[in-house]
């Protein structure tokens, strides 16, 4: 499946080249500062893990990169050019694809309609041009087969697939449409061990194909399995920013669990 992803990945990706760079980025919703002074670099062929507890600013960070909410301070550069996204379409057009935890797909729509949603193949370029349904069914079917996702029937509602499969279809779709940067929002949060494994394998495959991956999670074990760079957010600020070679799983786990705060708390509660 690595080969399939590599086949569709954009040609001009070189490992280690910065794709997205955030410099001092912050976001305020009225008087509430959801995120401040975040520096983050997403390199091609690397997985950047963003960890944090609930309310740490992870979602805000994604929303800025994926164009749902523009940032209010700092600079965001994509491929070296400064950007200020005001719609998801703009972000998508620069090759940034976001796969949301629970929003990846439209449950009542068929698998193939979901695969092509927003990028439908049409038989002409005029309003109300008919869709090329046959081609879309075939492409979706072969692509999913090649990537090792076996669905019974490409016409079944995607809600009938398991959570892991749905997540994989969403990732496969993003890669098929030439994403250069893949943002995965808590892709393993609602999944069991086996399903999480499938998603993590996909994440690694996308990385090996040269895509830049932003992996957002609150599970340090999952992050450490695929990550090259780790950023931990707490209350909208960076509290840790280290390369894989500089950090151990124990450190990540301890920091995620609360680090110094937890040590103080356990001291306080000592019996």
């Amino acid at each position, binding site marked *: 499946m690595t080969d399939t992803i590599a086949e569709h990945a954009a040609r001009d990706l070189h490992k280690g080249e910065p794709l997205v760079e955030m410099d001092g980025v912050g976001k305020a919703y009225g008087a509430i500062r959801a995120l401040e002074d975040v520096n983050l670099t997403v390199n091609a062929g690397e997985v950047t893990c963003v960890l944090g507890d609930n309310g740490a600013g992870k979602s805000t960070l994604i929303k800025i990169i994926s164009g749902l909410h523009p940032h209010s301070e700092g600079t965001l550069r994509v491929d070296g050019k400064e950007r200020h996204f005001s719609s998801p379409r703009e972000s998508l057009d620069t090759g940034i694809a976001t796969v949301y935890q629970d929003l990846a797909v439209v449950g009542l729509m068929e698998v193939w309609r979901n695969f092509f949603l927003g990028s439908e193949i049409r038989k002409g370029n005029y309003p109300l041009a008919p869709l090329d349904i046959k081609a879309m069914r075939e492409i979706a079917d072969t692509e999913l087969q090649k990537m090792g996702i076996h669905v019974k029937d490409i*016409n079944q509602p995607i809600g009938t697939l398991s959570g892991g499969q749905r997540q994989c279809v969403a990732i496969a779709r993003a890669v098929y449409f030439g994403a250069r940067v893949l943002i995965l929002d808590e892709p393993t949060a609602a999944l069991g061990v086996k399903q999480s494994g*499938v998603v993590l394998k996909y994440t690694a495959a996308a990385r090996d194909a040269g895509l830049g991956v932003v992996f957002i999670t609150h599970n340090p074990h999952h992050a450490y399995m695929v990550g090259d760079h780790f950023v931990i957010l707490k209350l909208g600020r960076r509290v840790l920013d280290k390369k894989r070679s500089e950090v151990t799983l124990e450190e990540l786990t301890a920091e995620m669990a609360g680090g110094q705060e937890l040590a103080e708390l356990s001291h306080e509660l000592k019996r």
Partner: protein
Amino acid sequence: MSSPVATQPSSQPSPPGAGAPAAPARQQRSLVSRVLARPEVGALAAAIAVFLFFYAAAPTFRSLPAASTYLYASATIGIVAVGVALLMIGGEFDLSAGVAVTTAALTAAMLCYQLSLNVWVGVVVSLVVALAIGFLNGWLVVRTGIPSFLVTLSTFFVLQGLNLGVTRLITGAVATPNINQLDGFDSARAVFASDVNLGLITLNITILWWALFVAVGTWVLLRTRVGNWIFASGGNEASARAVGVPVRKVKIGLFMAVGFLAWFLGMHLLMNFSTVQAGIGVGNEFVYIIAAVVGGALLTGGYGSAVGSALGALIFGMTTQGIVFAGWDPNWFRTFLGVMLLLAVLVNLYVKNYAARRK
């Protein structure tokens, strides 16, 4: 007693294996399963049942002229119901559709009569007004995020008041003057309200227009990109937005489509009777919604069909006329309607759960 264990040795379905090493045998879902997953199945069964019921109960119901009568009654509901069904699939409501029909008809009638204009001028101006009402509904919904139920309820009251108030102000009565002496009335009547002789049966032209709108609605929903976007906007707005679907434009467009169809029905009523009562149309918004829901549209959006709305309207038309043909007290009609709606919602709930179940 035979052992229940070994009865099905080979029909064990392979687990849906995302990480399974070998591809499980691919199989099409059974025909029954695919047919049952269509939104209009329940409405089709109900339409056949209602037809057979009145066929048995009322001898006059069996004739072709009777068919023409109930098809016409269905068309006057079904035309707007197509738009309302599409809008509901897109995840929104329109409670102002019933009075918007009257607003369109009143606009055309009074404009033409007061200024002695060609009827077609009124037709065009009222189209603009109807589309503007649709646009305003849609724009308010997507801009403010207020549920469309409330936005269009407000529009409903505003239009109801305007219909009565403005008509009273201009004509001094609650109905518009007769416009059948004006230029262009005959050609407008030919388009919107003439009878068409098809040899065996004479149909009002609205029935043909209705069929056309249902066909266009079905085509748009199932065969075009816009249709895909409508399903996605209603099914999961946030994920549709995230993959680049212009959800706001889709929703505004849907409200305008309802406006267009309300205008069309308004023109039919005006050309058919050549005068309009300012107070009509109130309550019809629910009839359109019922037709859409009976036809399989989910109140929560993302599921439904244009053909289903037509079947819903047909059930409605057959029942209103069937009760008359059978010589029963028409007061029972509303009771029937309520029962029908409840049954439809139950069937839809079942169908949705069936379609969304993991297989």
